[in-house]
């Protein structure tokens, strides 16, 4: 007994993350950060070089410094945040519906054989279809409204979310299902206690991909719709183009990029914490 347990204890002490000194944590954070900072710096240098080359006048292609100045100015304006607020609200609304629809569709396909035969392959087609292709139809049906934007976001994100969850459900280890059933879990209880938790990592992957699609779709839609007197990011982008305000245009592009990266990294952190809990991070747990 002791022979089996004792080495186990010592090993876990060695592996305990809390035992790391603060200095090493900092060093690790830095080692993750500097390549990214380097890449940003490289982009800025290339950008600056193109501006200096005189390829385009500065009114059409301003340098990074001017753009950052404009961005700093924007960040002090209330209506700028209002615009971001409108866009994020649309994103959250469309994405939430997409997640709900994706979950229901995935479970239906997983449970009903006929549903799998009917829509299983459609899902792949929908996933590769650019969701902006739905936009003309959405406008026809719903006019240039919030509803049309939501529909485009939904069609962009839902197939990816459904596909992620479905592949998670399909790939649950048969042994786990066997043990669940032998413990008396059948039907929805089997789903709740065994299959859905087991599908979680793949589901989070689908959510992450769904977010990327949702964000892209939303930007496309906002460029095309000027709805209900709301100043969204997309609409600000469009009006910056109309007034040939290149600085504003580039500042907004940076905002769109940063929001996309931030939310994506939230999903990344979620995915990492799940893998850590499950012991799926080789050597790092």
């Amino acid at each position, binding site marked *: *007994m002791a*022979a*089996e*347990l004792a080495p*186990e204890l010592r090993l*876990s002490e060695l592996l305990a993350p809390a035992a790391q000194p603060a200095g090493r944590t900092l060093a690790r954070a830095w080692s993750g950060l500097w390549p990214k900072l380097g890449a940003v710096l490289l982009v800025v240098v290339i950008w600056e070089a193109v501006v200096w080359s005189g390829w385009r006048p500065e009114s059409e292609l301003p340098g990074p410094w001017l753009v950052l100045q404009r961005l700093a100015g924007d960040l002090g304006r209330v209506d700028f945040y209002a615009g971001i607020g409108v866009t994020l609200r649309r994103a959250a609304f469309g994405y939430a519906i997409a997640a709900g629809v994706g979950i229901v569709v995935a479970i239906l396909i997983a449970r009903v054989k006929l549903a799998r035969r009917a829509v299983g392959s459609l899902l792949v087609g929908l996933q590769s279809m650019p969701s902006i292709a739905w936009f003309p139809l959405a406008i026809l049906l719903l006019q240039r409204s919030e509803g049309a934007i939501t529909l485009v976001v939904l069609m962009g994100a839902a197939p990816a979310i459904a596909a992620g969850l479905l592949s998670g459900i399909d790939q649950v*280890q048969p*042994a*786990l299902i*066997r*043990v669940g*059933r*032998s*413990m*008396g*879990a059948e039907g929805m*209880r089997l789903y709740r*206690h*065994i299959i859905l*938790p*087991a599908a*979680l990592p793949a589901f989070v992957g689908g959510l992450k991909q769904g977010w990327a699609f949702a964000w892209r779709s939303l930007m496309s839609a906002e460029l095309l719709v000027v709805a209900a007197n709301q100043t969204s990011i997309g609409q600000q982008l469009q009006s910056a183009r109309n007034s040939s305000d290149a600085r504003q245009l580039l500042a907004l592009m940076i905002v769109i990029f940063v929001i996309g990266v931030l939310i994506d990294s939230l999903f990344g952190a979620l995915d990492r914490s*799940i893998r850590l*809990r*499950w*012991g*799926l991070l080789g050597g790092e*747990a």
Partner: protein
Amino acid sequence: MRNSLEQGARMSNLLALSDKHALSVERLTVAFPYGDQLLLALEGATFEIKRGEFVCVVGASGSGKSTLLNVLAGLDRPSSGRAHVHGRVALIFQDSALLPWLTAAGNVELALELRGAKASVRQRLALELLNRVHLAGFEKRRPHELSGGMKQRVALARALAQDADVLLMDEPFAALDAISRDLLHEELERIWRESRLTILFVTHNAREAVRLGDRVLVFTSRPGRVAHEVQVDLPRPRSLDSPELAVIAGRITDRLKREMANGR
């Protein structure tokens, strides 16, 4: 009239069975579709296990041992014949099949929850069960933080949490190192003695079968059925290294080799 009489006779037969027998298998045949033909996993397997008995099944791979357990656990259906278990069944696999997102205690608690235990008592019961398999202090660990032997202890605690009458074990210690296996043999024997569970233990290791079983059933290769039965009368606790045990295990191994030669 005659029909109902027959039914009555069958009922009383069943009741008589239930007094002494925890498990009975009668001319059990299980076939699976394999390509465009049927593959026979079991053909006409017949045996009975008494209440509180510890029976080991040995057979070469492909002798339908896992299929037998699946049918007994209600996870597969017999093609013909009958497999009857009196009471509740719990399964233990070679791969502990613990849920990786739950802690050791969480895995045991889930079994209690599915059995219908109240939320207020689950935690205490789970700790008691982990204590019983000598895992006190490890309840918050997740499966990947446990050694192979410890995982099987959790699986054992989980099976006990199901409050089963019959424990079906499918090569549970095959992937463990010799010392962990030795310790788990003692553990399992102790729990069996304390609880008077009925255990059906499948293994491909003749020594392990003789170490643990009151009886050893030797299965034929594909399709599987009982070829030979050995009553083990050695006093408990037995040692894997004792010469008496080795003699019996040697005879079983010889028998297995012959079966494998026939099967090919």
